[in-house]
């Protein structure tokens, strides 16, 4: 039984479809990510879970109870806002105590719980501070302390790290994950930052244009994007437009690329995904593209010319023109490679993915 379940949720703002028919389940104890480009509807989805926004259709179940119409104050979910939404007229203690006072928790217990919440976020002794005396990172911690002080069954995060600078973001990320795990909480985490989602989440749903495109573990999403939109959004990909040839067999697809006219073979799990003579898109990660200076006779080996070598520290990106088909390869040691050099480009069959909606 999932802890939280969204069932065919939709939400329109005027004529715009912000969230379209989204269904997802979050299990107890899971750190669940909603990932997508800005404007994809992920924040609206989170706000509907929090009760700040009402779905036009569909249902939200929590522990198998329908909470679609429950007002936010009766859901008991802690939420951390992107801008922290700390009350500027209250000090740190009063901010963290806010939810406890709303629940009429006795005074002594309130101050105990505030103190332990502040200790959890490593801000002990900050009770009397005014909000505007805190740094961005400290404000962020107070926002988290305020959300966990009410001992929520579910924690909701709306891009909580996006206002921090890069080094602080990575540090806080680790602490956040550690904290949630230690308290045994379930979390839904909205972000547009793929790296952040990969680092934090057990499972991720990718949303694009209001629709939920694919859900899965980070590695699974990265290695096996099912859609063009997901492949485009998650990291760099070589997207190759191609046509399936009639010569292909059920498990070994044979494709002709529209640029360059190369013939590629790849393992196709489900034959029906690639209809004959219709353009489709194949994807391969740059790190899976292999380059060799001598002409290899391996399968899926194309002849190309090196056009550009971009040094980026640990790796270098090499751009190759294979008879009009432009490919990127990620190379750890670009020794011996030169611009305008002829080389062989190998696209391993097991790393080539056939995408939906080509």
């Amino acid at each position, binding site marked *: 039984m999932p802890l939280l379940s969204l069932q065919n949720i939709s939400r329109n703002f005027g004529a715009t479809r912000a969230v379209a028919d989204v269904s997802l389940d979050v299990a107890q104890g899971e750190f669940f990510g909603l990932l997508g480009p800005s404007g994809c509807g992920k924040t609206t989805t989170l706000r509907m879970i929090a*009760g700040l926004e009402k779905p036009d259709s569909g249902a939200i179940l929590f522990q198998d109870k329908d909470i679609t119409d429950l007002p936010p104050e009766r859901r008991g979910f802690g*939420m951390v806002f992107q801008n922290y939404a700390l009350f500027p007229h209250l000090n740190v203690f009063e901010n963290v105590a806010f*939810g406890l006072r709303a629940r009429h928790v006795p005074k002594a217990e309130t101050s105990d719980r505030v103190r332990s919440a502040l200790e959890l976020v490593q801000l002990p002794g900050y009770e009397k501070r005014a909000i*505007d005396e805190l740094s961005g990172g400290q404000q962020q911690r107070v926002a988290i302390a305020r959300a966990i002080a009410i001992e929520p069954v579910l924690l909701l995060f709306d891009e909580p790290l996006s206002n921090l600078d890069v080094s602080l973001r990575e540090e806080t990320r680790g602490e956040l994950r550690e904290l949630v795990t230690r308290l045994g909480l379930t979390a839904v985490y909205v972000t547009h930052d793929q790296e952040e989602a990969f680092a934090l989440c057990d499972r991720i749903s990718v949303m694009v244009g209001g629709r939920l495109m694919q859900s899965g573990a980070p590695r699974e999403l990265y290695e096996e994007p099912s859609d063009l939109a997901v492949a485009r959004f998650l990291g760099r990909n070589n997207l190759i437009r191609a046509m399936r040839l009639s010569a292909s067999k059920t498990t070994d697809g044979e494709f002709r690329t529209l640029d360059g006219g190369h013939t590629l073979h790849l393992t196709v799990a489900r034959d029906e995904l690639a209809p004959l003579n219709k353009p489709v898109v194949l994807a391969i990660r740059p790190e899976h593209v292999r380059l060799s200076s001598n002409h290899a006779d391996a399968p899926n080996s194309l002849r190309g010319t090196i056009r550009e070598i971009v040094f980026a520290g640990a790796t270098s990106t090499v751009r190759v023109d294979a008879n009009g088909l432009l490919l990127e390869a990620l190379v750890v040691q670009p020794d011996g490679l030169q611009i305008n050099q002829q080389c062989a480009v190998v696209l391993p069959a097991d790393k080539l993915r056939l995408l939906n909606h080509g």
Partner: protein
Amino acid sequence: MNTDVKRIRGLEQSKIRRVSAAARQWQLVLLFVVTVVVLIYGVIYPNLSVVSASFQRAGSWTLANYKEILSQRVVIESILSSLGLSIGTVVLCALVGVPLAFLFERFTFPGRRLFAGVAALPLVLPPLVGTVAFIFLCGESGILAHGIQNLFGLQNPPWRLSGWPALLLFHTYTMYPFFYVLTGAGLRRIDASLAEAARSLGGSRAFVFLRVLAPQLTPSLIAAALLTFMTSMASFSAPLLFGGNVRVLTLEIFQARQRGDMTMAITETVILAVISLAALTIFQRYEGTRKFAAATMKGAPRRRVTIASGKARALAATAAVVFAIVLVLPVATLILVSFAREGSWTTQTLPSAYTLANFQRIFSDPFAAEVFFNSFSMSVIAAVAALAWSFCVVTLLLKRARGNATFLGNSGRRLLSLLILIPWALPGTVVAVSVAEAYGQPSWLLGSFVLVGTFWILPVIYFLRFMPLVVRALQASMEQVDPSLAEAAGSLGARAWRRFVRVTLPLVWPGAVAGTLLAFVIALGEYVASVLVFVPANRPISIAIASELRDFNLGAAAAYGVVLIVIISVSMLIAGKLERLR
């Protein structure tokens, strides 16, 4: 050779820099002297002389004036009336303005824009014109009273527009926009995610309102209460024309002067000034104790809630239309009466015959032409002088970025701001009486020149009363200009004057002109101070309106009012356009 050239260039440049720094210092000294002279002549000396006069009798220092005046029941009553009227006005305006702001800021329904468009109308009516319009609409021989009388065939008018209810009603009509506008602005400024965070933490609607919204709104409410209190304290036209037995301080001062009892007028003026400044201090103490979060758009876009239920929608829409009509009705009445033929409006509900004669009269009559000319020239003089002087003041007031030493320290700037604020905070009556007291006889500041009795007394008073508006507008514009722009111009070799003319001025003129226009239109309809010190040579429009009214030339009085409203509307439109240019 090459290095020599470089060294010489370097020397020249450092010389230029030193010269321009010295020149800049001189310019600041000049601006400072101008500012200080104006403040001494306009603010410090008049206020000191009225205070010292109130403590003097027959050339010696004494408390006798206060003892004598505070032992009179009339005076005590007028102090209590002024306070009571102001507090009552604040309460009523809050009760009307705050709920309206919530309704129109938080919800959307048909008719919302209609009301929002006219909500601030009473604020731009000159007080005297508003009072006259109100009499035509609600007075005992006004449209409403006549209408009811004729409808039910009553012998007498159903009510008399007089005393407390009349004053409170009129004050609520004219001053509720302070609460409406400021509460609305406060609501817009509150970050919507604060209320959402509070609710997600388990706060009920009522809890969130009390603990989050109300504290965030408090500064807006205090500012509105302050403005309402001060405006009500200074109110003069309405108590004069339909105050009945309510005798407020402004009226007492006016009547004491009319009787020639200068000592009493002066002492009461000091009392009125002390009450006003005390209110200002008390209210300002509350300001700044609360903290706001600036609205950040991301995460929680604030949307007005659409009222879904049919009944509530209809109710809200009806309320919007009714309130809009109520707001427009006095002005509509004024326009109607301005077209009424003289003598055609006695017992009828509406005037029975219409004509352009009233407008023809005020445009052809040489007396009317003189009155318009007076008001125009005096307001232009005051507004332009205020604009010119504002540039001096604001240059001194501005905080300069990065190291560039400020001419005045922080406390100097605070004192300067305070001195500029005083004429704005004091009722017009106080300003007029203090200037008249200071320059009513040869003084050590003006030598044998006596300002009172000349044309110049009114432009001077208009300047003093309304220059704070221009200073504020200019300061706001200047603060928006990124100081690095002037620095960039400086690095490209532009001297101070060029930087000002080519960089700063093009960026600040819309705001400055908008503020000047505002000061101009307020001066154009000024009555409170004018009535105390005008002379035949500078009779303004407001005095003409009052005298037409006294002679029962209602149509002519209304026509003057309509012309004023037209000028004000046009100026406000231009000012609004300029504000958007900023």
